[in-house]
């Protein structure tokens, strides 16, 4: 119960700060940063939130399904551009993942920041 309270309060604070300061970050992402800061300050809290956090995260992919089901109904609005948009999305996803991962691995090797 405490875990859920910590998470929900962090989310509310995130929503509040994002709106009050006008940051280009959604409330939950700010809330994530707040909880990370809290865990660094009070490492004992890790065990308090572990079970609830892991339950939520193990279902993360299913949480996108309601929004995804809404997408299908809107695909028709892409009209004549459907093919162009799908091509842009697939190719740019492939290029961005490849470029990002290769850059990360390359710079890690150059700076001696190995993965161990």
């Amino acid at each position: 119960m405490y875990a859920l309270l910590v998470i929900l309060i962090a989310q509310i604070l995130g929503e509040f700060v994002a709106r009050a300061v006008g940051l280009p970050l959604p409330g939950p992402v700010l809330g994530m940063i707040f909880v990370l800061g809290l865990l660094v300050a009070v490492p004992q809290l890790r065990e308090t939130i572990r079970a609830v956090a892991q339950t939520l995260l193990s279902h993360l992919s299913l949480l996108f399904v309601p929004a995804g089901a809404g997408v299908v109904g809107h695909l028709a609005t892409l009209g004549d551009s459907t093919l162009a948009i799908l091509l842009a999305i697939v190719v740019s996803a492939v290029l961005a993942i490849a470029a990002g991962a290769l850059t990360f691995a390359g710079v890690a090797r150059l700076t001696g920041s190995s993965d161990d």
Partner: protein
Amino acid sequence: MTDFAEIWSYLSEGPLLWLTATVAACSVGDLIFRATGRNPLANPVLIAVCILAVVLKVTGTPYATYFQGAQFVHFLLGPATVALALPLFDNLHHLRRALLPVLAALIVGSVVATGSALLIASWMGVDELLLISLAPKSATAPVAIGISQELGGSPTLTAVLVILTGITGAVVATPLLNLLGLKDWRARGFSVGLASHGIGTARALQVNPTAGAFAGLGMAVNAVATAILGPLILRLFL
């Protein structure tokens, strides 16, 4: 005895039926995913979305009615995003030593994600409204929708393109990164979260905890990078 049609109309108007349908579609998606030996092409989100799309179409159910039930699942996205703090904290020792790779990959990945999509779309003659709505597609949905609105795009279209991008990233990431021979879980996770936000992060968490933590980080920092770089890159195409 009450008519079956009456019971159906009672159930189909309330949240219980559509909440159950959502969880059932996800269970089928998960079963198929496991049955294929966790093949990334059998993405459970994609399967569940397709099943629900067919069910809504066949039963003639408006999305608004469906969402009354599905909203309980949808709502948990916020708390689950906050919960990503846990894998990030568990991987803090990795994070401290990865500052330069993270910064470099963020700038390159963010520019390529937005730039290549706009290049292809504008080359194929896509109109201005769609180009604007496409620009922030790699950012997490609430940020992407905010950017799109600010630049004069369509928030609905952006929401659609964000979800398509997420599913695409989740499906292509594993085979693509294996093809490139990349074994660094930090690099793999970070680029997937950066390019395909929460859906990519969910996929990374299925594969490896360090990849999941770096995917969450990639999603968070690319939300900021897209808000800054997205409008600048878009200007080159309008």
